């Protein structure tokens, strides 16, 4: 698994500090940078979980037809033209004409090429060779297939039954509502004088029922049973189903299942679960599916209602009219292990002994080892920024109990991460041709910073050497080195939360005071602004030491 960096959006909880990275819920708060938006008004990161979404247009993903919203409802979010999916494999079906009279093998070739074709047309799946003639669906002309099918759908048993149910309940609810309006009556007024006071039907039903003498519920009335049954029926006439479930396929289904030879004869759960009507189980009787529409979505910041994303109207276009994505505002980060660890370790004059040779990022994070890693930050802004990184200290009690089971691990975090402590600069983003002249400057700065860091790192007594600090600066990218010391008994994923604060020159000094509540130091220069955000760095999974098992045995 490649190491990754994800960015935190604090919308899931009121706490701006993210939960410990090992908690299962934490993954929902972190997103890859390319999924995030940035609201300039609120000066905050927004994610797909907190933006409010509006539909700005519907289109069919197959024919790219922009469906006017008027017909979206009537067509139940499906393409109303010629787009169908194969019920077995979900491939797009194509319309083919029937075989010509004499050429029996020329269906896919000759007949397809002929412009008109023979009249009974049907849908054909070029992947699994299903065709709609199997289920007796043929068409007279090759266009407007959905309209030709519409009459079957309109007469689907579920919708007819549904209408009937509606008609069944409506007068009852209206009647009982009017009777409840005359509250004193005991529910016998079936005279359907449409009372002017419109009442929620179930409210009405309920209140009339409440007013009524409820047999058996309220008080004991020693009436004969027959009368009571009648009383219950008086309330609502018995519903006569259009199609009763009695005599539908269930009995034969049991026999069919009992003699089943191939699983594929039974339609999969997903192919029939949206059918509200009892149907056969046979997969051979599945009907073609109309392709569901997609929508183009406009996204707004949920706090200030400003538009973050607005796509162009045309279905063919993939551009946006408005696009405020976080990648244009906050530094992009990638994490990687150095390609070959050996030179770095030598250069670092490592006091730390890496136990297993070749234990690089590629081969995995062995428990008990020390591993350098590179963090590359890319500045998207046109101004240089200064970045400060800080590892979030895992709060011992919560993080321990969440990382289940091992209590000895609970005592202390199973690994320690060192990162450059001081702020480091990243040059401004510029067009590619502008960089060449400045190259000398960057090289110089790089040396300066590298040297500074090396010095500082040595002073800290870690003897970390070159592994921690600014390693490389070019164009608008700065690579810093970090190091992780993995504990001997560590296991599980190596993830840590990291607070990134960067300072940039603000164009708008007025907006300074709505800097986010994260620990932002005030810069000396008044027009400088600081923006902070949390990230989670996932370095991979720690490989437990094989030695530990041996020691347990001993």
């Amino acid at each position, binding site marked *: 698994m490649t190491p990754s960096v994800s960015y935190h959006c604090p919308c*899931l909880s*009121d706490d701006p500090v993210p939960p410990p990275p090992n908690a299962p*819920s934490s993954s*929902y*708060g972190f997103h890859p940078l390319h999924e995030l938006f940035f609201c300039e008004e609120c000066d905050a990161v927004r994610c*797909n979980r907190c933006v*409010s*979404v*509006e539909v700005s247009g519907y289109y069919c993903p197959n024919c790219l037809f922009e469906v006017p919203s*008027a017909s979206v*409802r009537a067509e139940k979010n499906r393409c109303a033209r010629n787009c169908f999916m194969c019920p077995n494999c979900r491939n797009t079906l194509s319309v083919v004409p029937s075989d010509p009279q004499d050429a029996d093998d020329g269906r896919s070739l000759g007949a397809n090429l002929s412009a008109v074709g023979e009249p009974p047309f049907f849908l054909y799946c070029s992947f699994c060779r299903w065709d709609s003639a199997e289920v007796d669906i043929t068409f007279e002309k090759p266009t407007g297939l959905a309209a030709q099918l519409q009459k079957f759908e309109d007469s*689907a048993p*579920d919708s007819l*039954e*549904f209408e009937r*149910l509606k008609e069944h*309940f*409506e007068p009852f609810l209206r009647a009982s509502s009017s009777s409840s309006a005359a*509250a004193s009556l005991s529910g016998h007024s079936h005279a359907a004088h449409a009372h002017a*006071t*419109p009442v*929620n039907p*179930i*409210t009405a039903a*309920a*209140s009339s*029922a*409440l007013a009524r003498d*409820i047999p*058996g*519920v*309220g008080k004991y009335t020693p009436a004969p049973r027959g009368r*009571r049954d009648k009383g219950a029926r008086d*309330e609502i006439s018995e519903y*006569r*189903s259009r199609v*009763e*479930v*009695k*005599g*539908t396929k*269930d*009995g034969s*289904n*049991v026999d069919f*299942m*009992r*003699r089943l*030879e191939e*699983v594929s004869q039974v*339609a999969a*759960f997903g192919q029939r679960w*949206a*059918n*509200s*009507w*009892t149907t056969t189980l046979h997969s051979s009787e599945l009907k073609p599916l109309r392709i569901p529409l997609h929508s183009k979505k406009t996204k707004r910041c*949920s706090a200030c209602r400003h538009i973050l994303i607005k796509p162009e109207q045309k279905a063919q276009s993939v551009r946006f009219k408005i696009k405020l994505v976080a990648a244009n505002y906050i530094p992009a980060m990638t994490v990687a292990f150095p390609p070959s660890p050996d030179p770095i370790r030598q250069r670092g004059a490592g006091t730390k002994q890496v136990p297993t040779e070749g234990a690089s990022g590629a081969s995995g994070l062995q428990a008990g080892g020390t591993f350098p890693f590179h963090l590359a930050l890319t500045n998207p802004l046109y101004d240089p920024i200064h970045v400060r990184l800080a590892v979030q200290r895992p709060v011992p009690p919560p993080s321990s*109990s*969440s990382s289940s089971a091992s209590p000895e691990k609970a005592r202390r975090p199973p690994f320690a991460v060192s990162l450059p402590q001081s702020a480091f600069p990243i040059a401004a983003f510029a067009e590619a041709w502008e960089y060449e002249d400045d190259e000398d400057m960057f090289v110089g700065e790089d040396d300066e910073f590298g040297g500074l860091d090396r010095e500082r790192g040595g002073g800290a007594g870690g003897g970390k050497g070159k592994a921690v600090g600014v390693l490389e600066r070019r164009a608008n990218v700065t690579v810093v080195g970090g190091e992780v010391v993995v504990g001997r008994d560590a296991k599980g994923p190596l993830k840590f939360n990291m607070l990134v604060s960067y300072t940039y020159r603000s164009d708008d000094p007025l907006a300074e005071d709505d800097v986010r509540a994260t620990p932002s130091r005030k810069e000396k220069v008044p027009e400088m602004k600081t923006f902070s955000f949390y990230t989670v760095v996932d370095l991979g999974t720690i490989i437990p030491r094989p030695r530990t098992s041996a020691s347990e045995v001993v």
Partner: protein
Amino acid sequence: MSNLAVPSTPRSRTSHAVPVTPAGAPNTARIARSGMVQASPHYQTTRRHSLYGTEDRVIIDPGSRVWKVGFSGEGRPRDVFFVSPLWGLQRAPDLFQREEEDRLLAAQLQTHLRAVFHDSLLTDPKSRKVIVIEHPLLPVYVKETIAKILFENLQVPSISFASSHLLALLSAGRITGLVLDCGELESTALPIYSSRPLFHQLRTTPLAGARLTSHLRALLLLFGTYLPPPTSLSAAVNMPASSRSTRVPLEVLSDGVLEEIKTRCSFVGEAMDTALDSSVMSPMGEDPMDVDLLPSDSAPSESDFSRVSADRDSNAGPTSSDFSVVSRSQVLPGRPSTGEHQLQALADLYLRHSTATDLHLKVTPPVSQQTGTGHGTLIVPGWIRERGSEVLFEGGDVDESSVAETILDCLLKTPVDLRRTLATSILVTGGTAMLPGFIPRLHTELIQAIITSPSASARPPVSRGRPRPPAYDRYAVLRPLVPYFAILNNPSPTHPSGARGSNNAGKAPAFTPATMAWVGGSLAGVLKTGGVEVAREKWDEAGGHPGPEDSTEESDVVVRSTNVIPDWTRTPLPMGAPPANLPPPQMLEAAPLAVVGA
């Protein structure tokens, strides 16, 4: 709240606060606005103005496993999808873990709810009223999490919660009946009379879809056969399948495979008449694997079986000699070894009572064994397909009564004079009830459970898998009702022509059991009804936005949960027998009104 129908009896007072009987003032006021629409309820007239009529609501049926979503007024849901199990029957005992669970639940619910509006329905949540179909035992914290996400993240204008059982009954065209919802986590029977659910007579059992899945897994581990992919293509031709066959590795039985077996291969056979052929041993030899699995001496006699099943709870299990062949390592973790006994005994019994064909399923081989070419093959014995679901009909346990017993217990709790009406209109809904043959079998089980009694039958109730019942005859009072029992959506009712229940059996429209609640929700939505409506303003008022001071938040949550989201568990308990000195009625009046009116 002056216009609340003032209840006249204690019983009805408790039920008017129930979510499905909206008697609150806001509803009436809202209807006043929509009165004209109601006169001509066809959305075609309003369609031109907006994409959907303003009164078209979004119906969400959130199960713990499968969600169904769509618009009101339509006969089928627009979209159905799986969710990872969002909640279970228990929560973490540790407070910290529970907080984590809640965060996880909120995040996952948010993902799904946003997907419902943005991906499935492609509609703007801000203009859509929502009906959430709630199972009566849906935990309140789940309900509140759903409401919080809908109001605060998606900003829907209003939410109504409607009882799934009542809605299912509506889809059958009735307002009175006994509804059994056999879903994923639980099977729940709830009597409903005149559109009022009698929540306090609800009975439930954990014998449902999830239990069936784990039972199928256990059976397949013991009795299924797995053929690893052949190591080379020529081996596939040369080697007979029997020489490749192995036991089923646990990794093969992923949730997806089990779901496929459950939904595509399983069905429910007729009740086993164990008295007739207990000694008859049908040949079991189609599969060579099976032969050596079975005890060599003979099939256990019926008394063996009943002994095994009788002492499955107490047996410490030193007596594994008879079934030593079966002593395998592949039992589900946590299952006591005596479970194997029981399973073996069950297997023999089931095998004798099944004629279903074995099925070959292509499965992905486990990662450790991916040496061969192509897919592995899982052989599902026919009797597992047919008799795996017997677990749902095995009662006898006090805590886990069978599905049929749950219905009968529910009937026993209902008032005497409602019993016959309810028994003639039983409705079975829920995903697990989609198993072919489930409903007819349930009917048989109902009748059998009543008829079988210590005095009436000489034979032990083997098929019910419970120990010899004590002299106490639990369902004696229900015995006169036997001819009346009828399941409304029984596809093949087997009533004798004279039976009085035959008037009702199979008379429901042929909606599938799994979607009945959704269809009922759609119906309620188009009839402009369906539960107490909670408007967003009300939610905002009650909850407020805690703002910067976090200290008050806790109390806000409490206030919100008691007031805004209606739940039947918050209604006062029903009156028991009246106390000797009756309290003055005014005081009785006050309590429920406060709850509703707030």
